[in-house]
Each structure stands twice: as structure tokens, then as C-alpha cells.
């Protein structure tokens, strides 16, 4: 390296630098950075001890714990089901496969409020699934089980969509080699295929988890929203805002932002580590 610093932007004859950089940075600032900055500023003016005080309240802690616990469970479910689904959709041929493949994306396309009232109608005690569950003495809607189902719904596509392209790229020779060397099919799946899918599956898992922690629309209808039991963290923010408690709302918002950033960091680390290990993601 020479002493000269690397230039901020390399010189090129390509036009539109000022315009494209200008639009990008201006919109990024107005839409994303300034609003997030306003949240952090609000937290700073409220004071760290006050923020921690609000976050430490029993009701807030309970809601953060609940959001995180159920999101983790839902993401784990989606990890297993998502890998299975991706495998079935790539490797097997059966009638209706295309419809199934397209249906995986429905949770992305369906508005969360619609998903919320539909799931509630389905799992409420007088709903199609809810009445079945009640016959065996289970209550799903308005309990944590209902929140779990809503979070499974919104996170469903992530793992399948990250794993699918990886399965498509697996070269048959690898599996053949494993079989030739005497491995049973299950042994090959477990020790050859699964490790190849792991990085993508973990990325999908983390994305699904991040989505679930912040989810609001699909959850509030089915949750019942009982403080300390079925009240999720985003709902607490809405309640604080409705009472014009901007400081408290900001405190909870910052806690959630920190959790999101931690997860974003984790996703990036997974990708960096797996890129080093596998040569690609």
C-alpha cells in the first residue's frame, strides 16, 4: 500500500454519480436514518437509567421475553419444516407442485391484518380448527399457542426460500460418491446434504426470527393481549403511544431496535463464517 489514502470514489467515465448518490443518500436519510436517529435521540434525552427503568418494568420484560421466546420457537419450527419443504419442492415431482411452490410465498403477500383475523377465525373456540382443539381440551386462540401459530405463518417462507437455491445447486455426483462409498441414503442426507444446507438454513432461521420478534399485525388479533401473559412487545409500544407516553414508547422501541441489530449482526456473521467455510452462501 502506498501512503495515499484510497479515494472515496474511484474515478470513472460512468455518468450519473451525483444524481444516483444524491437520491440514494437523501431518501435513505429522510425515510430511514433521520427517523431512527429521532428514536435514539429521544432515548438519549430521556436518559439511559430511565430507559433501563422502563425496560425493566415487569410488564415490559414479560412482553419482550414472550416475543423472543415464541419467535424462537416459531423460527425453530420453520427451520425444520422449511428445509423439508424446500427438499420436497426441489427434488420430488408430484401433481400440484407449482401451486404448492407459489403458496409458500403467500405469507409474504398476504397483509398481516388479514392473516391475523383469518387465523383468529380459524383457531377461535368456534372456528374450524379451534373447535377441534377444544374437543381435546386445548385452547389455541387468545393463548400463547395462538401467537406461536401466527408467528409460524409470517416466518414460513424465509427458510424455504433461502434453502431452495442451494439444494438446486447440489451436484448429484456428491451424493453418488457418498453412495458408492457405501453410505446409506439416510447417512448421505445427514452427513453430506445437511451440512451443505446448514448456512442457508441458518440465514433463513435468523430472518424468520427477526421478522417474528417485530411482528404486530398478525399477532394482536389472535393473542388476546392479556398483560404479562399474551402481550407482545410491539403492542406495548402502541399502548404507550396511545397514552402519549412518548418516552416510555421510545425506551421499549430502543430495546427492540437493539435486539434487531443484534440479530442483524448475527445474520451477517453467519454469512461471513459460512462463506469462508463453504466458499459461497
Amino acid at each position: 500500500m502506498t501512503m495515499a489514502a484510497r479515494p472515496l470514489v474511484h474515478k470513472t467515465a460512468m455518468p450519473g454519480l451525483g444524481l444516483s448518490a444524491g437520491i440514494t443518500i437523501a431518501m435513505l436519510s429522510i425515510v430511514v436514518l433521520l427517523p431512527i436517529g429521532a428514536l435514539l435521540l429521544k432515548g438519549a434525552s430521556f436518559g439511559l437509567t430511565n430507559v433501563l427503568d422502563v425496560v425493566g418494568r415487569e410488564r415490559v420484560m414479560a412482553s419482550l421475553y414472550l416475543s423472543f421466546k415464541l419467535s424462537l420457537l416459531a423460527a425453530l419450527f420453520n427451520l425444520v419444516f422449511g428445509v423439508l419443504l424446500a427438499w420436497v419442492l426441489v427434488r420430488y415431482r408430484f401433481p400440484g407442485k407449482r401451486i404448492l411452490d407459489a403458496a409458500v410465498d403467500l405469507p409474504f403477500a398476504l397483509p398481516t391484518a388479514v392473516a391475523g383475523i383469518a387465523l383468529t377465525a380459524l383457531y377461535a373456540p368456534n372456528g374450524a380448527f379451534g373447535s377441534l382443539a377444544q374437543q381435546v381440551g386445548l385452547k389455541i386462540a387468545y393463548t400463547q399457542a395462538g401467537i406461536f401459530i401466527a408467528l409460524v405463518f409470517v416466518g414460513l417462507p424465509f427458510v424455504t426460500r433461502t434453502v431452495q437455491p442451494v439444494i438446486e445447486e447440489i451436484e448429484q455426483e456428491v451424493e453418488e460418491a457418498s453412495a458408492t462409498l457405501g453410505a446409506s441414503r439416510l447417512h448421505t442426507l445427514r452427513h453430506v446434504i445437511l451440512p451443505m444446507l446448514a448456512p442457508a438454513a441458518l440465514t433463513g432461521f435468523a430472518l424468520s426470527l427477526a421478522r417474528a420478534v417485530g411482528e404486530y399485525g398478525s399477532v394482536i388479533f389472535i393473542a388476546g393481549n392479556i398483560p404479562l401473559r399474551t402481550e407482545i412487545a410491539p403492542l406495548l409500544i402502541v399502548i404507550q403511544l396511545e397514552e402519549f407516553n412518548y418516552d416510555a414508547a421510545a425506551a421499549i422501541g430502543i430495546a427492540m431496535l437493539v435486539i434487531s441489530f443484534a440479530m442483524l449482526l448475527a445474520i451477517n456473521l453467519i454469512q461471513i463464517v459460512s462463506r469462508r467455510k463453504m466458499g459461497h452462501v
Partner: protein
Amino acid sequence: MSDATLPTFRTATEEAPLLRIALIAIAVAGLAILVFAPLAVVFAEALRDGWLAAVESLGNRDARSAIHLTLLITAIAVPANAVFGIAAAWFITKFDFRGKAFLITLIDLPFSVSPVVAGLCIVLLFGANSAIGSWLVAHGWPIVFAIPGIVLATVFVTFPFVARELIPVMIEQGRTEEEAALTLGASGWRTFRTVTLPNIRWALLYGTLLCTARAMGEFGAVAVVSGKIRGQTATMPITIEMLYNEYLSVAAFSMAALLTALALVTLLLKTLLELRHADQLAATRRH
């Protein structure tokens, strides 16, 4: 030699037939319970009192105003996002600069922020009790509890959609075609219109579709900034919530069915794009 005498072989790279059938059955049953059942319920509940009641519930003034508002918000937010996506993708893929990875992370940031937190951020920046907000309100430009706030919230939650689809495609296509056009004397705009745009149009359409679906359906962020004023700032998803909480089930599900129909159209178009123009979409979209 007749086929019947041949023993059936299973290649070593396939699962046993029973396992295969079991896995397919789990996949089908899982999607039926998790995805198809909620979808069916939306339409079943909407049509519970017949077509007439469903259609009638969409015809009243508040419902029509909600539909108008959602279309208006989508019509502003989606083009804004497309312009941003094109500009960001051009900036990121046509130039080499420091901090590119960081910029991409910032663009992706809205995906990892809860929509409610996004709404909260906008309220704190532009709300009536913030410095900027009170100045804007005093000059007759309220943002929060008004349409500009809903647009901002919608653009926030859909922010990365278009850029994310364009960046991988434009990286793959490189810069040589544009450089050739420029060398031959084409202006920057002409190069973009006649060289770049045809190359990225399907990816652009794909990103725009995803963005549209999310923009029409956004609930959490909009719920925080809209103020839920009936006939003024209540979008379709907000109206669904209000109707549902008032136990107007048929009306709520009729509006939900309308949004669901739009979502299904989006899904159909998206699937068609994946089938027809796979080679011009980001690699992860090809299957």
C-alpha cells in the same frame, strides 16, 4: 425382453418411496393447515351472509374512502421506491467507493426493524411535539396522523424491495454494455434508457410487485402514524381492524377478501415472472 421381468431399481441418490411419500404428505398437509386454511377462511367468512352483503359492505362511504386511500398511498410509495431502488442500484453497481457494504446494510435495515418501531420513529421525528413536526404543523403541513406520514411509513417498510432485486442483477450484468454505449457517444440518460433499463426491466417489475403487495397491506407502521381517522387516514388494513373490533365480521372479512384477491394476483404475476423471465431475475429467484 419385456419390462415386467426387470426388477425395479432405485438409484442411490433417491430416498425410499415410502419416505418420499411421507415427506410429500407432510409438506402438503403442513401448507394446507398453515396457508390454505387461513386463505379459505377469509373468503368463507366474507361470504357468510352471501355475495350481496359482502359487496354491499364495500360500497359504503368509509370503505370506499379506505380503498381510495390505500390506492393513493400505494401509487405514491411504490414509484418513490422504484426511483430509489434504481438510483441506489446504479450508484452501488456502477461505481466503486468506500463503505459500499455499509451502505447496503443500511438499505436493508428496514427489514430488521419492527414495523411498529418504524412508525414510532416517524412519530418521534415528525409528530406534533417534535421540533420539526411542530414547525410543519404550524405551516399547515402535518405529517403524522395525515397522509404524508402514512406514505413515509409505507416507504420505510418497503424500502429495500426494489434495490434488493436490482443490485444482484446489475452486478451480474457488469458495466461493459453501458461503457460501450457511452464510448459510442450516447448520453447518460440514453444509455440508461436504451441499455440498462431493458436489461433490468423484469427484475424491476419483480421488485415493484413485491413492494406493491407490501405497500397495500402494511398495518403495523401505518397503525402507529395514521391516527385511524375514519374516512381520512384509515387505510384498508386499518379499516379491517376497526370493523373487526366492532364485531362487523362480514364487513371486515369482505375488505380482507379484497386485499387477499389483490395479494393472489401479485403472487400469480410473480410466479409468471419466475417462469418466463427467470434468467433476468436475481439468482435466488430462479427456480
